[in-house]
């Protein structure tokens, strides 16, 4: 059945390439807000679904792209394992393909790794309609260029993902969340210092004078870290971290009502709070800053501040008009942009797959 679905996609992509008909690749549609607006005939990936293989002692799960993320997480949880990159769903219908194509990782990312760190292999139908298999199911593999990771975060602009092999990890035996009252720069300093001392951090979130820190690991390690850190306990910690991951936290919900644009600033972890422009929700031990800005703000200024903090700024949520005007992602230096164009020309010369979604023209 699935082979038929993939063959059908291949035919459809070949025909679309010949006719230069753009295709919009959609799974659960939960991350439609992310990236530049793209137009095209709908290619729904949900027909290609199901967990193909899961062997907990191999730490590997293989599933088709349309498999609901919730189904995968449940299956892993039943075996005491998890996706260490803690992907945001952003809605009930999130699929594995969307998670990999968007390349977004959640609160555990600095300690547990990003999507790209835990993807072992994948299959993809490129813009020629060719089914390609990259990587595999093993932890170490240096045969051929790493085209697997190239697809992670490519937002479907190089191919339609059909199947993914992921590295899974055991769920930590013990979790605890502690809260601290402090200023933003103190929070940045403390979280980096704790990480440098090897304390078992697995998430941090600073907002409006409160730093929340999650500790995860073997029980003795977590208990000892709690003793070292002090702080106060946090009620409903599980739902708190879910609200940060899923952006239902007050910071995100309140900002969304104003009509402002949400910026994602990925920066050097020790960058000072000031100089990035306004109140931030700070995750990832300082390496991720969320910032609401009026839609009228000069995007170049936000991007310049992020670049000065050794990172980059993404226009994460905003109206179609704002995203078209400024571009979702920071512009690339000319030699890198040229490489992007040549890669696009290789995988999708007719530019039919999620056209413009990553960068205008790709």
């Amino acid at each position: 059945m699935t082979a038929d679905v993939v063959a059908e996609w291949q035919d459809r992509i070949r025909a679309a390439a010949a006719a230069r008909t753009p295709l919009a690749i959609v799974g659960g549609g939960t991350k439609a807000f992310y990236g530049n607006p793209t137009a095209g005939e709908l290619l729904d990936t949900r027909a290609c679904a199901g967990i193909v293989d899961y062997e907990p002692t191999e730490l590997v799960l293989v599933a088709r792209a349309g498999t609901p993320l919730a189904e995968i997480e449940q299956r892993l949880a039943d075996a005491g394992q998890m996706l260490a990159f803690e992907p945001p769903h952003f809605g009930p219908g999130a699929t594995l393909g969307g998670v990999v194509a968007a390349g977004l990782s959640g609160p555990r990312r600095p300690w547990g790794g990003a999507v790209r760190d835990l993807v072992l292999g994948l299959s993809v139908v490129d813009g020629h309609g060719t089914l390609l298999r990259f990587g595999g199911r093993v932890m170490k593999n240096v045969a051929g260029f790493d085209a697997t990771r190239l697809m992670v975060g490519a937002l479907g602009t190089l191919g339609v993902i059909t199947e993914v092999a992921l590295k899974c990890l055991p769920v930590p035996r013990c979790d605890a969340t502690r809260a601290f009252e402090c200023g933003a720069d103190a929070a940045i300093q403390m979280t980096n210092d704790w990480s440098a001392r090897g304390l078992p951090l697995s998430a941090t979130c600073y907002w409006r004078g409160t730093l929340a820190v999650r500790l995860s690991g073997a029980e003795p390690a977590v208990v000892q870290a709690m003793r070292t850190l002090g702080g106060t306990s946090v009620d409903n910690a599980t739902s708190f971290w879910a609200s940060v991951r899923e952006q239902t936290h007050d910071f995100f919900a309140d900002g969304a009502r104003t009509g402002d644009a949400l910026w994602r600033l990925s920066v050097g972890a020790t960058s000072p709070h000031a100089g990035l422009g306004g109140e931030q929700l700070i995750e990832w031990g300082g390496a991720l800053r969320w910032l609401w800005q009026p839609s009228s703000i000069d995007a170049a200024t936000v991007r310049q501040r992020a670049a000065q903090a050794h990172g980059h700024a993404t226009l994460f949520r905003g109206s179609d008009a704002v995203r078209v005007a400024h571009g979702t992602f920071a512009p690339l230096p000319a030699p890198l942009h040229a490489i992007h164009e040549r890669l696009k020309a290789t995988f999708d010369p007719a530019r039919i797959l999620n056209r413009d979604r990553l960068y205008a023209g790709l």
Partner: protein
Amino acid sequence: MLDAALASRLSAVLPPAAFLDAPEATRPYECDGLTLFRERPGAVLLPQTEAQVVAILKICHEARVPVVPRGAGTGLSGGALPHADGVVLSLARFNRILSIDPLARTAVVQPGVRNLAISEAAAAYGLYYAPDPSSQIACSIGGNVAENSGGVHCLKYGLTVHNVRRVRGVLVTGDIVEFGNDALDAPGYDLLALVHGSEGLLAVITEITVKLCPKPPLAQCVLAAFDDVEKAGAAVAAIIGAGIVPAGLEMMDQRATRAVEDFVHAGYPLAAAAVLLVESDGTPEEVAHEIAEVSRVLTSAGATEIRISKDERQRLLFWSGRKAAFPAVGRISPDYYCIDGTIPRAALPLVLRKIEAWSAEYGLACANVFHAGDGNLHPLILFDANRAGEAERTIAFGDRILALCIEVGGTITGEHGVGVEKLTSMCAQFGQDELACFLAIKSAFDPSGLLNPGKAVPTLARCAEIGGMHVHHGALPHADLPRF
């Protein structure tokens, strides 16, 4: 030798004694760690600055001269094999650690810095660089990026690609590029990942920002003996299945332990069919907890003996045999050939049984050491190149092991790279569509094809030529390519 005009243009942009073309000066560069293949380069260039690298690449690009980047030359797949009509671009003089940021846990280093030197410099801050290939005292960080090197701790701490934030390099045209940054991600396609394991085909690396990890307060190692190799393999799966991800999980078979025991006197149990080394690191409480669990799992998996390192000296002693496995085998055999395949762990018993059977069939002894936690095998085939036919039988034996790795769902190289050694095996691992993609990726970075040509990715014509060797289940790979 290069033509005189080109030689003088290149030497003009380099400091004195940084342009070598006399045969006695270029001889040390004629091979890397894979000595089966040798070639004399037209010249060897030893730039010291990025501006010199840019100038060299511009000249070579304009003159259409192949450039082979080289780190410490410890690679095991011939990735730094010179091109007879080209130059070797050695990054050996890029040997400075530029900065260490203890709070951000990063170090900015030049590509010629030795892997171990980073950890030595970071030790003052209680930090270290996690990936630790066995050659870490000699191999350079630039080479580690080019090969995406692993090590004995990568099950827990990842490969090079998981531990590098930023790579600065020069494209063949002389354009300076940066992949990644000081943040945890970068806009656009993940070119930082792509440059890892690219074997010098995409860019010449001039600067690297690596991630540093806090040095665990304590590390302890469990040595477990098994009277049966398959039981040891099952014990590995049982440890992972129990929710434990040890800092290291290594296995050696009896031939390997006997070879290293004579060499390092680690006190290995020589009657055991296989030995497992399981390392735990963290706080003393964490380690005590994990070691207790590991010991319990090993006992129920049928370990005949379990030893727990009592102190750092003993822990290093346990590891000394594993780390010295290659030189130890080199002592008992005139030559050996190291295979580097990765398999799903579940296939371990089957693969070991076949290797044993083939060892008898080819009349060649084989010692097995491997990164069991990652399923990365390193069978060492013992042979004597001076005996007629042994080298050929060795290569046939090795190819058969790699074909088996593919068959059970694994790969032909876990960490040593393709280089020139595994070009043929690449034809068995990938179909022509994937290979065409790799060639196109190469062209996207280096349309002229001058950076390390002929490595890492075979031409489609080469695969068509040898295709007949790999008829599997009656299916001829690359059946639609023209045959010679």
